[in-house]
Each structure stands twice: as structure tokens, then as C-alpha cells.
């Protein structure tokens, strides 16, 4: 998968970086991903049973927080204030982009699986940043930022690898779990794509429903007048309280 992934990343990076406005989007997406990973790491600090790893998780979380701010700063300087602000401040974006869900990674995976996921995800990030730099795509300041961030990412990869290797040496099926995570990440990208596509199709049908189902009743529709009105209510009986309408 290595070569194939690298080729894919190269194509995507080349395309993404050359369309006006796209680099900002990509950097904003990085900022969101870093923020999401900070939340996952803090959850690991909270929940870990391996007290020796706590400090590493904590440092990792602080790194990711810093990266998020660095990326957002770059987006801002490249002239997309709204999006950069949103990437840093609007939590709704984290949910929309699928960066966070109802539970944290640590809660979903447990410690060992979490570590192998961290290894896979961090290695992917390193690869993506390296492709960007190797192709000399970013402007000098963004490149300098990426270099700074890469140093931390290498540290994340290396401590996670140490833990994964330790577990493998103890006979745990780490190779399988890493492969699983790799495929899961591909699967998730596909799911995101297909749900975007589904929304697009759904939007089409709902648009049609709007024209056919809503339009003909236009003359019956009326907005409420302003001012105080007499309320119409179901009251506070138990039967009324139990209904949804």
C-alpha cells in the first residue's frame, strides 16, 4: 500500500495545492484534524491505566493543540479568515468534518488498539506532510511551519511505534490491528464521500419535493403577524405532556 498511497498523496497534493483557495482549505482541514487529535489524546491522559504513558499522552496533546493553532495561523495569513477562525473556534466544524464523534478514540478502542491507531495515523500524517514538502508546494512560511510540526510528528510516530513493538513482542496481534486501522481509514474516507454524495442526491430529491409538494400550496401559506398573540396550547395534563406535538 505504501507506493500506491504515496502516488495518491502526490496527485492529491499537487491538485489541491494548485487550485486557488484550496491550500487554505487543506490547511484548515489539518487544523481541525489536529484539534480532534488533541481531544483524543486528552481523553487518553484521563483514561489510561498505564500511568507511565500519561506524560507522553499529555505532551502529545499539547503538541497537537499547538499544531492546530499553527495551521490556523497559516490559513489566516493566506487570507481565509472565516474558515481559519472556524477551524479553531467553531466546534461544529469538528463534528461536520467527522473529526469527532460521540466517543473518543480511546474510549472506542482501548489502550492497545488506540496506540496502534496513533502509530498508523501519525505515520500517515508524516507521509502527507513530507509529500507536500518534497513537491515544494507550500509557500516558504507554510513550509517552515510544516518542518516545525514534522519534528513533533516524528516523535509521535516513534513513541507509538515503541509501544506497538513492545506489544507485538509480547505476542499481541499488532500487525493485524495496524492493517485493520489502515483499511478502516480508507473505509472512513469512502463513507464520508458516499455520505456527501448521498446528501447531494437527497438534496436533489428534496428539491424536487419542494417544487412538487410545497409549491402548489403557496397560496395557502401565511406567515404569522407580529405582536402578542393568544397562545394555543395542550395544557399540562399528563396525556398532553406525553405527546410530541
Amino acid at each position, binding site marked *: 500500500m505504501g507506493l500506491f498511497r504515496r502516488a495518491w498523496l502526490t496527485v492529491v497534493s499537487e491538485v489541491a495545492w494548485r487550485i486557488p483557495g484550496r491550500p487554505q482549505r487543506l490547511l484548515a482541514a489539518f487544523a481541525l484534524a489536529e484539534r480532534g487529535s488533541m481531544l483524543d489524546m486528552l481523553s487518553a491522559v484521563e483514561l489510561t491505566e498505564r500511568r507511565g504513558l500519561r506524560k507522553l499522552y499529555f505532551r502529545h496533546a499539547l503538541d497537537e493543540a499547538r499544531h492546530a493553532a499553527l495551521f490556523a495561523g497559516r490559513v489566516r495569513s493566506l487570507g481565509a*479568515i472565516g474558515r481559519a477562525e472556524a477551524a479553531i473556534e467553531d466546534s461544529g466544524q469538528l463534528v461536520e468534518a467527522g473529526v469527532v464523534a*460521540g466517543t473518543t478514540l480511546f474510549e472506542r478502542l482501548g489502550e492497545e488498539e488506540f496506540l496502534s491507531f496513533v502509530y498508523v495515523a501519525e505515520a500517515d500524517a508524516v507521509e502527507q506532510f513530507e509529500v507536500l514538502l518534497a513537491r515544494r508546494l507550500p509557500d516558504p512560511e507554510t513550509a517552515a511551519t510544516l518542518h516545525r510540526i514534522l519534528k513533533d510528528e516524528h516523535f509521535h510516530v516513534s513513541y507509538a511505534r515503541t509501544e506497538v513493538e513492545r506489544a507485538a513482542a509480547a505476542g499481541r496481534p499488532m500487525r493485524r490491528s495496524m492493517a485493520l486501522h489502515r483499511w478502516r481509514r480508507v473505509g472512513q474516507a469512502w463513507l464520508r464521500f458516499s455520505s456527501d454524495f448521498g446528501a447531494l442526491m437527497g438534496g436533489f430529491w*428534496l428539491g424536487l419535493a419542494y417544487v412538487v409538494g410545497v409549491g402548489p400550496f403557496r397560496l395557502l401559506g401565511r406567515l404569522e403577524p*407580529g*405582536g*402578542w398573540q393568544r397562545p394555543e396550547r395542550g395544557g399540562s395534563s399528563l396525556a398532553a405532556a406525553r405527546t410530541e406535538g
Partner: protein
Amino acid sequence: MPSYVLGISGLYHDAAAVLLEDGKIVAAAQEERFSRLKHDAALPVRAAQYCLETAGIPVSRVDWLVFYEKPLRKFERIVSTAVATFPRSWRSFPRQMHHWLGDRLWLRANLTSAFGVSPERMMFCEHHLSHAASAFYCSPHDEAAILCVDGVGEWATTSLWRGSGSAIEPVSEVRWPHSIGLFYSAITAHLGFAVNEGEYKVMGMAAYGQPRFREEMSRLLRLDSEGGYSVDLDTFSWHWHPTEPATARLARLLGPPRFPGTPFTPRLDPLAQHHADVAASAQAATEEALLHLVRHAHAAVPAPALCLAGGVALNAVCNGRIAAEGPHAHLWVQPAAGDAGGAMGAAMWAWHGVLGNPRGPALRSCALGREVARDRTAELLADLGARFDDLGDDAPERAGRDLAEGKVVAWVDGREEWGPRALGQRSILADPRSAEVAERVNRSVKFREPFRPFAPSVRAGAAPRYFDIPAAAASTSRFMLSTHPVLPEAQAGLAAVTHVDGTARVQVVDADTSPRFDRLLGAFEEATGVPVLLNTSFNLKGEPLVSTPVDALAAFARSDLDTLYLNGFRVERMR
């Protein structure tokens, strides 16, 4: 065996869960504090879990789950608005339907799968009734007029109720699309701030301007002779546009919008001054509208007390004016006046209004959320290699001395606050006397716009020496919900917490409800002679208030604060 009622709000704005045990609040918490996503609107699964754990019961012991809205009535409003605004609503209709068909229409089933409560044990409280209940049942008043003002619930955007004993009766309402809350949000967006987040900034910016656009505002928000109002539906577009709350007419009327993130330098930049004037005009129009509604409420429901809730009730400047100029002798505002508070109101309505149980004591403290466990904290600090002292119960005195030395202190103590204000459980504290310290707080952690003032906390006995708080604001000032003049002779001594217009959003601290925070203020007073502190929420920009020790340590490490107090542990800067 006690009865349990679980109130839930969510899916639109701030999600929250509140658990009542025989009508008494066991725990109340907003989902954002757990998920760490500010204003998290997802169903509050973790907050509810926390409430159950605090009570020590499994979910099977919950007698009623009460949701804070009637979803089908809201759906009806959305469909009939789409019909009435055809074809302009072509963009918003598919989006809305996507959400509704996706999950909101199947709410009962979704609540069951999220919380594990069976569908027969559910109630649904109307949105504005949830707000009304959250204010009235928490208040100490047996008879009151209740006024709720927000963006929109099902149909109502403003509602008036009569509260009497355990009963709340509807009196009248203003309906969608006419809405003061949405009017204020539209101006917020025009001024380049995020809706549902930047409203406080408009309020702060208003103090720098003159209300030069009164005339224009009165066209946008028209007060009528019956004590109600309507908005200009040709200028505003929130009823048919999915993202833009106003049409281009707004800019023609009020001038160019402010670009998000523009530095605010009113003395140097005429456009910034123009925007400050727009903010001042919108704020003044909102205050006038609220006073107009409040006078009507007093005429329609003659009672000495007024209870307020709904997002607009978080406008502390409005509340200050209602207390000072309005006809009511007592004002009571739900501290979580926004939609989070709906969870509390919904549960209380079920308990008192539906099940007919008598009223309990009034809400006197917002410390209803998660607590910091001392043993876990000690373990965590050791694991992270932090430098710390265990001061135990002597922490308030030591913190007071740190503050007197000019340190900026993060103070985490006891159960976290219910509602958006930090009230001495998750606070950043500093010396209120010099503007230079406020500047340092801003630089080291808050990074906020200069037009957002910092608030003071003052010991109850000393409050009249510094602030002009009307008698009607006795309870709102306890929860930092109203803004009042700083006495002229005190302003120079409280430079860090006096806003440009000479006011402050003050918190009056009672020794009986907040004993440790009062001791801290006392220690600072002993060292400096000043019983006042700068008190701002302990969070980083764009994040909710810190909740756990891990949150606190991470925020501490990412800021430039001098010292962190964590339930009796004093933590030094980690380098």
C-alpha cells in the same frame, strides 16, 4: 423510594441534562463540558450519564425523561414556513428536511436508544414552557410574571406566563418569524461575529459607540401600542435563507458590514467607530424593546416579581436596566437562560406542573456539575511530573496572597458551574485594580477582543461601597447576570473591571453559598484592602469552561497563567 426525573435539552443549541430526585436538583451539566465542543448540541449522553452516577442510580430507576421541546410542532412550523416563503426557501427547505428526516422526526426512538429510557416514560415540554419553568420554579417567588425571549422554539419567540405556586399558565406570545433574539443575531452577523457566540461581543462593543441609528433600528424592530413588537420581514431573511439572516437591505440601511476578525480601533478608524455605533444602536433598541415587554408583562400579570429566561435573558446590560428602570420589585433570571437551561425547566415542569408536586427551595448556587476528586488529582499531578503543593483547606488564603502579589491565578474548586458564567468554581482570577493586569490576563490566556470587559466578584457586604446595584437585582447580581454602574469614586480603583461606560457585570459573592470563594476574596482583601477580584471564565478561546483536572492542566500548560489551584493543590508553571 425517591422519584427521578431526567430533563434533556439538545439537537439545536447547548445540550444539557438535569436530574431531579424528588424534585431536588441532584446534578445539572452541559454536554460541552464532557465532549469539549463548545455549545455541543448532540444529545447529552455523557451529561446524563454523569447525572445518574451522581445520584448513584441506574437509568432503569428514572421515572420520566423530559425533552425540552415538542418536536412535531417545530416540524409543523418549518413546513408551513417553507410553504409561505416559496420559492425563496428553496435552499433552506432541503437542508431542514435532511436533518428532520435523518433523525429529528424519530426523536422518541432516538431518545430511547441514546438514554435507555423506554418510550412510554417520556414527556415533551414546549420549548418556551421549558424556559419559563427554568426561571419560575428555580426562583423563590410564589407569584410572578414570567417572560421568555429567545431566537425561536416551536412557534413562540417571546412568551408571557403567569406563575402561581406549582402552576404556570400561558398568557400571550409573539410568534416566528418575529423575534428579538434573531434580530440581535442578525446584527451580530452584520458586525462580523459568529451567531450564537458573538452576541456578548456586540454587547461589549456597544459601550464604545453612540446609538446614532435609533431611527433605522426602530424600522427593523417595531414596538407596537399593545406592548408587543414585530420585525421587518423584508430586510431580514432568517425565515427563508439557510445561512444569511438578513438581505442586502440591511447594509443599505446600516452601512457596510464588518469583516470578521478586523481589528477594533474606534479612535483611529472611522469605520470601526461606525460599527460601534451600529452595535450601540442595536443594543439600545433591544433594551428599549425588553423594557417595553416588561412593562406590558407587569400590566398583564400584576405581580411584584419578574422571572426571565431564553437566550436574550443573558444580555446582562438589558437585565441591569430592567432591574433599575422596570416596574418589578424583584428580578429573577435562570443562570443557564439559553437552551441548556431548558433541560432544567423541562424536568421541573414535569415534577411540579404535570405531576402536581409542591415547590421546593429556590436555586441558590450554580455549583451543580462535576467535582474534582482529590485522590485522582494527586495521582495525575504525580504522573505528569508537575510541581505542586497540597494546601488542603488552606488554599483560599494562599491564593488570595498570590493574587495580592500580582499573580494571575486559575482557580478550580468544587463542582463546576451550571450556565455560561464562571462563578468561582472554574475561574481565572486577578487583581482588579490595574488595567495592566487585565491586559496580562488577555495576553496570557483569553486572547479576547479589547471591547469585551472583564467582570468583578465582590464580597456581599462590601458591594454597596463599589457598585450601584438596585434592590431588584439582588439575585441576578449573585449569578453575574446583570450589569450595573461602578460608583464614580470606585472606578479608578477598579480599572481592570470597569467597562468604558463605567459599568461592570458584577458577581456578588455570599459567604453561605460560596464559603471558599468568599474566604479567597477575604484573603485578598486582608492583603490589599480591596474585597474585589477580576473573575473570568477558565477556558481557552473557542473552548468550553474547563471541567476535569486534565482539562485544567492542559489549559494551564497552553497559557501563560502563573499558578493553578486544583481543589486544594497549588500547581506551579510547568516549563
